[in-house]
């Protein structure tokens, strides 16, 4: 319970933040729509935009299908082997692609699957003529599977581990064969979360930017996001960008709408707590199959990561670290990422606080209930308007005020903030809620309020999740190429942009070294952000 003035303040902050976000996003969309509307309808469905839309959906559909179909046997194998040495590390490895800047992952994939990579060298030695291509559709699919298979596997594994342990004992005492176990136990559990998991991955693949930029990008393999970027950056053709952006918003809106109807993908948390006894996994064929699945998927994930490391070490790291270009880019990256992360936290807390204030009202009324729902959905709705579209809109607005480059850093920071918002909310909202459940009545009855409660009760407990969320937001911003791609220049060079421009000018060695450095920075930040969690569990 809050005192009256606290309630008013939280409410005011929530409204202010909500207004700010809507103005920021709305202005970008309005700027897009008000530009040269006369010529627009004819540009919506030219042969070009139609092809781009088709390719966007096709690659997303195939990526989703492959990721989920390949993840299912891996998840089932891991579920059937609840205890083997190294299992926890394999599951942790599966979390790495999610936290890895996409550009770095792409470099690792090129290192293994590229023209000079391990796989193709081996294939040529075996006398194969046509090596696997990392570029074009096949490369995009490969990369999307690399990033999304582990995500799907973790979510499916969590769904399987949520089944009660008695199911497995019962199935073996009933003498079920593996296929019956699959049909009667595993598949129903997977099917429940499948729409959510597939929807999430489909959304990620439709809006995928960096991978398509690096591995596709030719006229035959371009998604809407990359096409918008090309229309602005290379051809400076705003009407085409607007037509593409409208298609993009329409498509994502449809997908988000469909996803809201489907049950959520659940939580990817590892539930290794309960002892599972899987008697159905003792036969040798079962062991062999599970081993094959686990080893193959581990190699598939680990090899590109190892390649980043090995290739990065080949570069002259010391010279890179001390080079003016690196230091300037690192400074720029931090100068954008840190304020963006702090702002994300403040915005999230304002949204959470306002919703709490509304929940505390005894009879919120229809308007308040609606407002609370809007506040809750805001962080989610920003996914509707992808970074490139936001950047395009603001580019058009700011162009009239002079050199866009001078606003670019602030713009990139704000766009990064919005991109991080859904993730930060997912960390903070449950933490704040459980803290409130445990302490609200007690603190109120003791007359703890305002600053006193903030310093004595709230901050000591919430500092940890806030740091975790902040490290997420910073890593996201540090590794982002999507927002900076439109504005990247010699005036605004972040670390990913530096890696990308080195790659574009075929200085792969430098790119590898820089990617390793960026990867290490992100890894350290993630470790700092999550370090206290284990300690807390013991305490």
């Amino acid at each position, binding site marked *: 319970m809050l005192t009256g003035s606290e309630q008013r303040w939280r409410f005011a902050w929530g409204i202010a933040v909500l207004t700010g976000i809507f103005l920021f996003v709305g202005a970008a969309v309005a700027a897009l729509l008000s530009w040269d509307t006369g010529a627009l309808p004819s540009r919506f469905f030219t042969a070009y935009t139609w092809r781009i839309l088709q390719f966007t959906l096709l690659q997303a559909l195939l990526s989703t299908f492959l990721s989920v179909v390949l993840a299912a046997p891996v998840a089932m194998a891991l579920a059937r082997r609840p205890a083997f040495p190294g299992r926890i590390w394999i599951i942790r490895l599966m979390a790495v692609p999610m936290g890895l800047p996409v550009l770095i992952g792409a470099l690792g994939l090129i290192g293994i699957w590229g023209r000079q990579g391990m796989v193709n060298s081996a294939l040529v030695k075996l006398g194969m003529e046509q090596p696997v291509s990392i570029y074009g559709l096949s490369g995009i699919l490969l990369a999307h599977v690399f990033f999304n298979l582990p995500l799907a596997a973790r979510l499916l594994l969590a769904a399987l581990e949520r089944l009660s342990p008695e199911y497995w004992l019962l199935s073996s005492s009933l003498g079920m064969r593996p296929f019956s176990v699959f049909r009667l136990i595993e598949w129903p559990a997977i099917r429940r979360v499948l729409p959510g998991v597939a929807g999430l991955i489909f959304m990620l693949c439709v809006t995928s930017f960096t991978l398509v930029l690096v591995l596709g990008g030719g006229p035959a393999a371009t998604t809407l996001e990359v096409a918008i970027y090309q229309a602005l950056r290379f051809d400076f053709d705003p009407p085409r960008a607007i037509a593409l952006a409208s298609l993009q918003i329409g498509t994502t809106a449809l997908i988000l709408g469909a996803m809201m109807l489907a049950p959520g993908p659940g939580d990817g948390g590892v539930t290794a707590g309960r002892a599972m006894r899987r008697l159905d996994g003792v036969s040798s064929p079962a062991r062999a199959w599970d081993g094959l699945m686990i080893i193959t998927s581990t190699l598939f994930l680990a090899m590109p990561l190892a390649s980043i490391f090995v290739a990065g070490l080949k570069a002259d790291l010391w010279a890179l670290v001390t080079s003016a270009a690196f230091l300037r880019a690192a400074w720029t990256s931090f100068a954008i990422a840190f304020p963006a992360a702090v702002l994300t936290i403040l915005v999230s807390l304002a949204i959470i606080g306002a919703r709490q204030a509304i929940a505390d009202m005894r009879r919120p009324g229809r308007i308040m209930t609606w407002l609370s729902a809007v506040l809750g959905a805001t962080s989610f709705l920003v996914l509707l308007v992808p970074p490139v579209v936001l950047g395009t809109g603001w580019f058009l607005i700011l162009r009239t005020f002079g050199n866009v480059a001078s606003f670019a850093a602030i713009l990139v920071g704000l766009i990064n903030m919005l991109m991080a918002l859904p993730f930060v909310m997912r960390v903070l909202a449950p933490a704040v809620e459980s803290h409130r459940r*445990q302490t609200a*009545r*007690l603190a109120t*009855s*003791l*007359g703890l309020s305002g600053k006193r409660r903030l310093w004595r009760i709230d901050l000591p407990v919430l500092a940890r999740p806030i740091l975790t969320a902040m490290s997420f937001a910073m890593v996201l911003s540090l590794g982002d190429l999507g927002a900076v791609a439109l504005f990247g220049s010699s005036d605004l060079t972040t670390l990913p942009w530096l890696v990308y421009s080195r790659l574009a000018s075929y200085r792969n060695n430098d790119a590898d070294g820089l990617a390793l450095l960026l990867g290490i920075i992100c890894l350290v930040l993630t470790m700092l952000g999550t370090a206290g969690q284990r300690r807390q569990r013991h305490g």
Partner: protein
Amino acid sequence: MADNILLDKVGLRLGGQHFRFDGSLPGGAITAITGPSGAGKSTLLNLLAGFEIPDQGRVLMGGTDVSGAHPSQRPVSLVFQDNNLFAHLDVFTNVALGIHPSLKLREADRQVVLQALQRVGLDGFAKRMPGTLSGGEKQRAAFARALVRQKPVLLLDEPFAALDPGLGISMAKLLLELHRETANTVIIVTHDPQEVARLADYAVFVESGAITLQAPAAEFLARQDLPALTAFLSG
């Protein structure tokens, strides 16, 4: 003798449920609030504590209208079923918060906290963190805080429900002793008829959002004419 608590035609609507409480809870005595789950026991306690504000009617404590007062402005201390302690603060600090939420303590205040801990049987627990305490020890610490707050009314919401039965009995004994020493007014929500017999001077039966019976404990436990009460007493 301490003042009675008056519920003057208190009306409240929560969701689709209507509550109507009217009556007086005797001061300086222990009153047990019982009834089927969902009948409104906790709502009644929340009205007294200030977590709910009545739509109509008044709540009076010590002759003062506290109907709209913030929970911290009421002459009450609270002990919940669990989460009575802030998990990140040690036992001493948790108890000291009862003296003043700013924790600006004089030496005399520190002594008061230590004496309260000693009184509830937690001598030497001052520096311990709540995570290292058993369920009973946590409730003892909550009692210690209620002691240092020196409020005339103590509200307890099923304080022993999460404890083993044996432990519940010894905690009830401690509560009784503290009550005799401080002569405070105790209102305890419970679903255990034995607890009513052990502790209460008076008992109140809450049914579908209203008080349907209020009587001295012995008479309350002997009543046969209310089906819901009979079910409660035999359950």
